C-alpha cells in the first residue's frame, strides 16, 4: 500500500531521501501546473516549484504533521506565487500598462501540431484553440487570490477548509471569493457559456 504524504514526510525527517523523491514525483505535476496558471510563465513556474520542494526539504527536521500535507505544500506554493506575481507586476507596468498576456511554449507546441492536422480539421482545430485561449486568458485575468482559489478548488480538488487555510481566510470568505471568481468567469466566457448551455 502506498504510504501517505504525512508518513513519507516523517520518513524524510528520519533521513530517508527516497521518500523525498516519492513526494517529488507525487506533487511535481500538480505544483508546476498550479504555479504555471498563477505566474503565467512556464520557466518561472518550474523555478518556483523547485523552490517549494527545497523549502519542504529544509523544513523536514521541524516537520510536525499538524495539518494535511497538501495544505502545507500549497500554502508554500501560493505564498511564493503571490509574491512573484506582485513583484513582476511592477516590472510589467514599467514596460506597458496593457501588455498582452505572455505567450509561451504551450501555444507554440500547439501550433506545431496544427501543421500536422489534415486540412479539413484545421478550422475545427482553430475553434478549439480559440476556446482554450479564451478560457486560459479568463483565468489569468482574475485577481490573483481569486485565481488561486479557483485553481485549488477546480484542479487540485481540495476542500473548502483546506483552501481557506492555504489562503489564510475564513471558509465563508473563501466561498464569496470563489463566487466572485465564477461571476467574472461567467461574464468573460459568456459566448462559450451560452454554447455550453445549448449543447
Amino acid at each position, binding site marked *: 500500500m502506498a504510504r501517505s504524504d504525512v508518513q513519507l514526510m516523517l520518513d524524510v525527517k528520519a533521513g530517508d531521501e527516497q521518500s523525498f523523491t516519492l513526494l517529488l514525483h507525487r506533487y511535481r505535476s500538480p505544483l508546476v501546473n498550479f504555479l504555471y496558471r498563477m505566474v503565467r510563465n512556464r520557466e518561472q513556474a*518550474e523555478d518556483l516549484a523547485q523552490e517549494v520542494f527545497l523549502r519542504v526539504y529544509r523544513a523536514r527536521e521541524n516537520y510536525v504533521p499538524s495539518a494535511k500535507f497538501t495544505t502545507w505544500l500549497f500554502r508554500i506554493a501560493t505564498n511564493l506565487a503571490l509574491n512573484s506575481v506582485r513583484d513582476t507586476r511592477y516590472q510589467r507596468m514599467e514596460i506597458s500598462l496593457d501588455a498582452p498576456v505572455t505567450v509561451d511554449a504551450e501555444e507554440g507546441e500547439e501550433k506545431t501540431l496544427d501543421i500536422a492536422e489534415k486540412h479539413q480539421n484545421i478550422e475545427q482545430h482553430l475553434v478549439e484553440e480559440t476556446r482554450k485561449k479564451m478560457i486560459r486568458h479568463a483565468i489569468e485575468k482574475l485577481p490573483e487570490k481569486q485565481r488561486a482559489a479557483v485553481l485549488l478548488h477546480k484542479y487540485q480538488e481540495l476542500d473548502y477548509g483546506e483552501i481557506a487555510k492555504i489562503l489564510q481566510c475564513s471558509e465563508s470568505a473563501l466561498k464569496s471569493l470563489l463566487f466572485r471568481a465564477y461571476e467574472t468567469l461567467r461574464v468573460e466566457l459568456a459566448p462559450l457559456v451560452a454554447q455550453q448551455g445549448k449543447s
Partner: protein
Amino acid sequence: MENKILGYVDGRLRENERLEVEKHLAGCAACCLRVNEFRAVSGLLEELPMIEPTAAFDLRVRARVAAEPVKQSWWAWLIPAPRVTIAALVLMLATIWVGTASKNQPQIAQEDIPVLENYDVLSNFEPLTELPQPVQADDGGQQQSPQM
C-alpha cells in the same frame, strides 16, 4: 444563497444544504440561471490542458537539495550514532565513579602509616639487627649467583 450555489454545482454540499438549495431553486429563476451558467463555467475549466514538468525539473530539484548544507543542531549527533553516544556516556559515568572512589584512597594510606612506622622501629631495633634482614631475602638470588 450565493455562497452555496458553487457548492451545489460541485456536489460539495451536505444533504440538508442541498435540499435547501433545491427548494430555493424551485421558485427562483435567477438562481436557476446562475446554477446553469456556473455549471457551464466549471465544464469549460476542465478543457484547459495540463502541462508536464520538463525532464530537467527533477534533476534541478535533486541538485538543489544535494547542495543544501548539512546543518545539525548541537544535539543532532545523538541520533545518527547511538553506539558512540552510549560509549561516551559509559566513559563519562566511569570517570565520575573513579573520581568519587579515589577520594577514599588517602584515608586508607593514612591508616597504613603507623604500621610502616612500626616496621621501621622494629627493623632498627638493636636486638634484632643481628638477625638476617627480611629485605635481603629478596636480593638473595643476585648475591648468590656469583658464588655459583
